[in-house]
């Protein structure tokens, strides 16, 4: 099975926007080639995690090896390397593309090209991949294949005369796609005799076998028992297991240049077998690693605190376990005067952050309080020191600061023309700098802005989606730091500053943000037996304040024989709500309050 000649191997991935049908298409390919029997088929076969199926997105990439007898009568091995479809994981996307010679560009025939698709196509073109356009959902009444083909040609410059019209859902166009993979995508280079170089494009943690790495052999051959070296981490391992993914793991004797497979070698954590690292043989190492390895750099930070202080150690253990499987997750202990002990965690982006939180709550049964996301500010002190500040409450006092710089990104949005106005407004309100606007087609445009990352991590994506009724898409990449007039906005609850609510904002926005924040907190914090003032302040100057009136009564008027069970439930609910709140001094503050920054009215933030 592994004796596939290099010339009969095709390695490809699928580039598609969320919802454009990538997972369904992958399912169909697995079925059509008999890789997965119909009775084993469950929807979105490649998306393993529950979270992925629920959200309909791919978080961790996967791979599948298919055997296909083409119309020319020859047997081919097709390796599908799945890619995650979200902006947070663009590094992983670039690694999986680097493991391929071609890609299917799947575009919804009723929607057209989206920003992320575009970004991934550019990545694929950078890697010299052969791109096969596929117009999916051709069966839908709103499908406009000709318009979308024109769009692809105009936008990307791809020749769409051979584009395949398909419907993964209905099984239309699947044979044509497979034939195109065989005939259009080039085979890998035959470098079987060269020193081993294999690219890790994914890894995950298995409780029994340690980290399992998925890799593509670029040069040479690897077999079970080989002693390998990971060129970036410098660590060496003896291979316990080498195999292919069909799509479940199947051990094989060896894998040679062009092939895709997995290995296990008692590797302690995925951080030791990171995506992008190069595997070589310890005995005859390659001279150079494969290009493109970068450390995962967290972009978004937040504090995670257990609601129940006694569960701090449980949280530490849970993070340790998640880290085994997620090399991009960073964390270090944090102490907050308001929240007690917790962790400051770094994430690739907002989605990554949400996923980690959700897994902690779901898989480890933790009740967490999350502070609003922050970015890394670069502060130069008057002594000339440069500090990286990922926690607003650690910002040096104004008289100790020379300047504050904040990370910027370039944002590219693709949107129907109708929403250009409202999206420009959104970008302006987020301190965006307009760069460019181009018409892709008479009705679709691309908008390019430079924005502070801090303005993007606070709910930009949802705003963009709701303003464009879901039609706009976005993609961004970091473009460095810029100095700005930033100030620390403190929030005082019952006259006590709450460090976990402090935030860094532009001076010009401090008033509206402060006002919006205190009024949101007034909504979110329940009434107490005393009045609770809520204030926003810069230094000692209060710039906005609200007051939560005291509660006047909290009593059930009636409780007779038929009411008892229901009233007991009400009280249990009240008690549970109380338990999920964090006591700040004498004020109970619910979890959502710490994320209030994300729920501000658009006018203000």
């Amino acid at each position, binding site marked *: 099975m592994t004796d596939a000649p290099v010339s009969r191997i095709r390695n490809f991935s699928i580039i598609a926007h969320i919802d454009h049908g990538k997972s369904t298409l992958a399912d169909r390919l697995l079925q059509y080639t008999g890789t997965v029997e119909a009775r084993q088929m469950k929807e979105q076969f490649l998306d393993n995690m529950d979270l992925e199926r629920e959200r309909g997105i791919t978080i961790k990439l996967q791979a599948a090896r298919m055997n296909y007898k083409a119309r020319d009568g020859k047997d081919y091995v097709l390796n599908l390397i799945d890619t995650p479809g979200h902006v947070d994981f663009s590094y992983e996307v670039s690694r999986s593309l680097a493991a391929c010679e071609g890609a299917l560009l799947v575009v919804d025939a009723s929607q057209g090209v989206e920003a992320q698709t575009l970004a991934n196509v550019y990545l694929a073109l950078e890697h010299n991949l052969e791109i096969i356009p596929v117009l999916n959902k051709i069966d839908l009444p709103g499908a406009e294949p000709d318009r979308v083909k024109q769009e692809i040609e105009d936008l990307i410059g791809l020749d769409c005369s051979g584009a395949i019209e398909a419907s993964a859902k209905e099984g239309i166009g699947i044979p044509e796609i497979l034939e195109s993979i065989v005939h259009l995508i080039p085979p890998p280079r035959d470098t079987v005799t060269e020193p081993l170089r294999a690219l890790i494009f994914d890894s995950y943690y298995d409780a029994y076998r340690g980290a399992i790495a998925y890799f593509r052999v670029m040069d040479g051959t690897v077999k079970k028992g080989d002693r390998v070296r990971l060129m970036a981490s410098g660590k060496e391992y003896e291979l316990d297991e080498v195999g292919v993914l069909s799509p479940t793991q199947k051990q094989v004797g060896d894998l040679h240049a062009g092939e895709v497979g997995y290995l296990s070698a008692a590797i302690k954590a995925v951080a030791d077998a990171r995506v992008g690292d190069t595997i070589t043989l310890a005995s005859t190492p390659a001279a150079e690693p494969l290009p493109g390895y970068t450390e995962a750099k967290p972009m978004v930070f937040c504090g995670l605190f257990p609601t129940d202080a006694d569960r701090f150690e449980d949280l530490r253990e849970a993070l340790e376990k998640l880290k085994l499987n997620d090399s991009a997750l960073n964390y270090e202990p944090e102490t907050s005067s308001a929240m007690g002990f917790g962790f400051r965690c770094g994430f690739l982006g907002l989605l990554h952050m949400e996923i980690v939180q959700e897994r902690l709550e779901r898989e480890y049964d933790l009740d967490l309080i999350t502070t609003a996301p922050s970015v890394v500010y670069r502060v130069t002190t008057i002594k000339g020191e440069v500090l990286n500040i990922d926690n607003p409450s650690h910002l040096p006092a104004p008289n100790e600061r020379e300047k504050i710089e904040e990370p910027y990104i370039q944002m590219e949005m693709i949107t129907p023309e109708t929403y250009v106005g409202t999206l420009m407004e959104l970008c302006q309100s987020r301190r965006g700098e307009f760069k460019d606007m181009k018409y892709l087609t008479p009705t679709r445009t691309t908008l390019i802005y430079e924005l502070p990352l801090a303005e993007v991590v606070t709910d930009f994506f949802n705003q963009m989606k709701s303003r464009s009724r879901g039609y706009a898409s976005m993609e961004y990449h970091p473009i460095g730091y810029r100095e700005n007039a930033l100030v620390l906005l403190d929030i005082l609850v019952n006259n006590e500053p709450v460090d976990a609510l402090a935030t860094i904002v532009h001076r010009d926005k401090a008033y509206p943000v402060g006002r919006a924040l205190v009024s949101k907190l007034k909504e979110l914090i329940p009434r107490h*037996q005393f009045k609770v003032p809520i204030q926003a302040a810069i230094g000692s100057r209060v710039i906005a304040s609200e007051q939560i009136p005291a*509660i*006047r*009564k*909290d*009593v*059930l*008027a*009636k*409780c*007779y*024989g*038929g009411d*008892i*069970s229901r*009233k*007991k439930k009400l*009280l*249990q609910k*009240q*008690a*549970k709500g*109380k*338990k999920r709140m964090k006591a700040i001094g004498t004020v109970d503050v619910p979890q959502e309050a710490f994320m209030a920054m994300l729920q501000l009215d658009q006018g203000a933030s």
Partner: protein
Amino acid sequence: MDDRNPLSQTAFSDFHLAVNAASAPRAAYLHIPFCRRRCFYCDFPVSVVGDRRNGSNSNAIVKYVDRLCQEIAATPTFNIPLQTIFFGGGTPSLLSVAQLDRLLQTLNHRFGIAAGAEISMEIDPGTFDLAQIQGYRTAGVNRVSLGVQSFADDLLKACGRSHSVADIYEAIDLLHRAEIPNISLDLISGLPHLTLDCWQATLDTAIALQPHHLSVYDLTLETGTAFDRYYQAGEHPLPTDETTAAMYRLAQQTLTTAGYQHYEISNYAQPGYPCRHNLTYWENRPYYGFGMGATSYTHGYRVTRPRKTWEYYEWLEEYIAAGGKQPGSPPPPNEVLLETLMLGLRLAEGLDRDRLVRDWGTATVDRIDRCLQPYAQQGWVEIATPHPDSPRRSVRLSDPEGFLFSNTILAALFEDLAVNL
């Protein structure tokens, strides 16, 4: 049945007799769901029969009374006579005397009714005449709870009540003429457009009528009611929370000054006249329940019957087929404790601390004490030490402040005791 005054003993005389919840029920609740119309604040299981005067002849009521008798007859008996019976609704006064009499006979036949038992009936002004109330009286009813709610016609109208203020005075006159020995009036505070002055007048009017007992409820917007759709709690035209809390204090002050004992969060009685039936609930003792939507608490667990007529009839068929066995099992001990606290702290007398220690152990009671400590300091919880007048040690909420914040205090107890003991 004997007609002497209800027991002058208060809650704890029975308390020591009261064995655990699995013991014999001595109280029975019968739900009579029929109403002429549904009041705007009401979320009880009711069945609207309209304004026909001879409602009791309607087939629906006839059929329901039959079923109720079947349920009573099918219910396992402990052979301990009933001390209290309560006809609640709905509007039980839509029953004919014969129907009421039949229900009492059926109860007596099945369980026995103790001499001196309290037999209460909820009635609404404008739904009965003298012959009818005399008939109820002869059949054994010795306590009547009259649904007054307000002494202002515009407020009655705003609540969707089917009676007028004139009907109230007429009803009370009829009750006196029928020599009902124990009369209770229901009032509601916090109604739309109700002001403190108007509330004071309501209380004064009620006192002038010299009822033996008063139930005073702060309006609750129950989910799904008309009021819940029309209004927002604490917002115009409803009085603010501050005003309704003031109404609560005003009732407490006015009624206790007039000689009423504030014996439960929403209930006041002249000495010797607390509702013995309702004390069963608050002391967490067992009770039978019959009829649609009714809850029973026998064999240590509560069973609530379906709230829709036909569903109740289906349930009843299964119940009879199962020989009066109901699926269910007693809740874990900490749930029982939570119920004991939630109910017992509604009473002015509070909970007997020594009994708590006996039933739940010192460690648990220490935990309760610790949890209540901050509220005791605040003056919302009183821990009474024994003295000659009151030989027991009790834990209770203060009146009115502790009562007004009873949920806050209970939620703290629930939070602390939610995990298994």
